[in-house]
């Protein structure tokens, strides 16, 4: 008895060791990848608090810190508040309008069962595979020129809305497919019109998908380059990313640590907002976004 029990013990211990070794290996690989994600961002964070001479070298830890760059960029770069405002304004409007369109269309495609529904879905789906954004830029410029919207910050909103419109509608559609028809019908029989049904019954159940659509549209509009760079040439009407992409170091306003400070200011809101919304975001992704 004693011999066999010690044998099983040894066997269990061996197995335990193997499991442990495996777990250590697994976590090391994951952590390696996570570090490759975090290190570039931390490096830029460090760059934004380096002194000017230290910023000319690529080292991680500076010899002298300088925390004044954040104040400097707001004091001395006169165009910065404009660009920041443009970004907030264009992104806000784009997210709002696209989400509104996507919720209505997604809901209608599932629960109002329009006759041409499958056709609309097919067109939206195929637009995802065609390089629309690139090829259409020639005509989008023409349209904006025709409407007098070249060099207009508000004018950017129109093409921005369509950047993610198709995917947003498809995401909302697959989210609304999870809402049972019986629930919608019950509300309808109780005398609620389609607007009330959507607002009271449909929307609360589509919350997770809504978060996904908002985040996806925010990320696209906040970082859009091609349209903004093409449809405007005045620094004052441009959004933040276009200004950042053309900033080139040196010693003046756009010295490296100062660009880095602007960079951190621009990149942080998205990351913070996401961290707070991540539970809903993951749920939404799992529920519907990945099924389209």
């Amino acid at each position, binding site marked *: 008895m004693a011999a066999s029990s010690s044998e099983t013990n040894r066997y269990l211990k061996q197995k335990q060791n193997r499991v442990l070794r495996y777990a250590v290996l697994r976590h090391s690989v*994951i952590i390696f990848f996570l570090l490759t994600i975090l290190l*570039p961002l931390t490096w830029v964070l460090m760059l934004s608090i380096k002194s000017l001479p230290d910023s000319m070298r*690529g080292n991680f830890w500076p010899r002298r810190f300088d925390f004044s760059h954040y104040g400097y960029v707001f004091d001395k770069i006169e165009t910065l508040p404009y660009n920041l405002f443009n970004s907030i304004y264009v992104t806000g409007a784009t997210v709002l309008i696209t989400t509104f369109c996507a919720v209505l269309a997604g809901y209608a495609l599932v629960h109002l069962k329009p006759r041409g529904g499958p056709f609309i879905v097919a067109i939206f789906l195929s637009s995802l595979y065609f390089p629309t954004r690139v090829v259409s830029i*020639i005509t989008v*410029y023409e349209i904006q020129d025709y409407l007098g919207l070249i060099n207009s910050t508000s004018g950017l909103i129109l093409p921005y809305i369509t950047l993610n419109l198709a995917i947003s*509608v498809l995401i909302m559609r697959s989210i609304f497919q999870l809402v049972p028809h019986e629930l919608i019908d019950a509300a309808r029989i109780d005398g609620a019109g389609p607007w009330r049904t959507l607002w009271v019954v449909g929307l609360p159940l589509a919350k997770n998908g809504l978060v996904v659509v908002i985040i996806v549209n925010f990320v696209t509009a906040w970082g859009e380059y091609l349209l903004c760079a093409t449809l405007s040439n005045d620094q004052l009407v441009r959004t933040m990313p276009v200004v950042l992409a053309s900033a080139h170091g040196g010693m003046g306003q756009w010295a490296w640590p100062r660009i880095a400070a602007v960079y951190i200011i621009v990149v942080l809101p998205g990351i913070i907002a*996401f961290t707070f919304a*991540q539970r809903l*975001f993951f749920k939404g992704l799992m529920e519907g976004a990945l099924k389209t």
Partner: protein
Amino acid sequence: MASAKKTILGLDLNTWVFLLPALLFFAGYQLFPIVRVVWISFTDFKYLTNDPPNWVGFANYIEAVNDPLMWKSLGRAAYFTVLFLPGTIIFPLLLAVLVDRVRNAKVATVYRVILLIPAVIPSTLVFVLWKWMYNYQIGPINYFLVEIMEWFTYRNAPQWLGGTDLTLPSVAIMEIWWGLGYHSIFFLAGLAAIPKDLPEAARVDGANEWQVFWYVIRPRLQPIMMILVVLRFGTAMAVIDEYLIFGGFNRAHPTYTWTVFMYDQAFKTGLWRQGFAASIGMVGAVVMMIFVAYLVYIFRSKD
């Protein structure tokens, strides 16, 4: 009264109101521009002239197809796609399989949140970030290679984005980094849908971890893989923003792909030949679509 619904084209008025905003924007800024580009590609259209554009038939297409730059620039886009596509599938797949086995819920959440950070960094900010990473003088990558490892000196350190053979691989690494988390989450969603007793049963039957992955898990991830390959093929072939930011309009630069060629002809070259540019865009798009159709066909026939 309530039953006397107003209908237009057989559709309830309310249904139209719901669909109209999305359809209007889609028609105005996606459908119409593409149709118009197709039309422009058959004319000598220019923004700047007041003369009405003339129909020129296939002249623009003949010129585009006979321009060696057309094929060279398409080749560059294809080369980039080949560099980018395997990495953006394999690394996230590996990561997803590993993260999926983390049992501690809190640790798993932390992993996922960090994984998704690149996905919430807007595109241009990713490019600005990596412009720093690859910077010849102040970039941390060259700092590591020169000062810490001492494999290079600042005289012969690699010019990552400087138009050398390293440029497209460097851009590909950046893009793989960008998609790492997002694609992992795709695969994690697929893994979550696999019933846990399936791999367990295979293990009880004596399958090792590799066999479990290859015979049990991989076939069930096939649909997600298919969508990712086709979608990312499309984005990789049509990359433009990062090429404009990194390379500009130097025709010898490896980032001068068909998209940049089109943009150059439409907006930068003094001639402003939008008709010719449109035909370049259409040739590129058609070549892409042929490959997309082929990819969809390959994946379909396996089922």
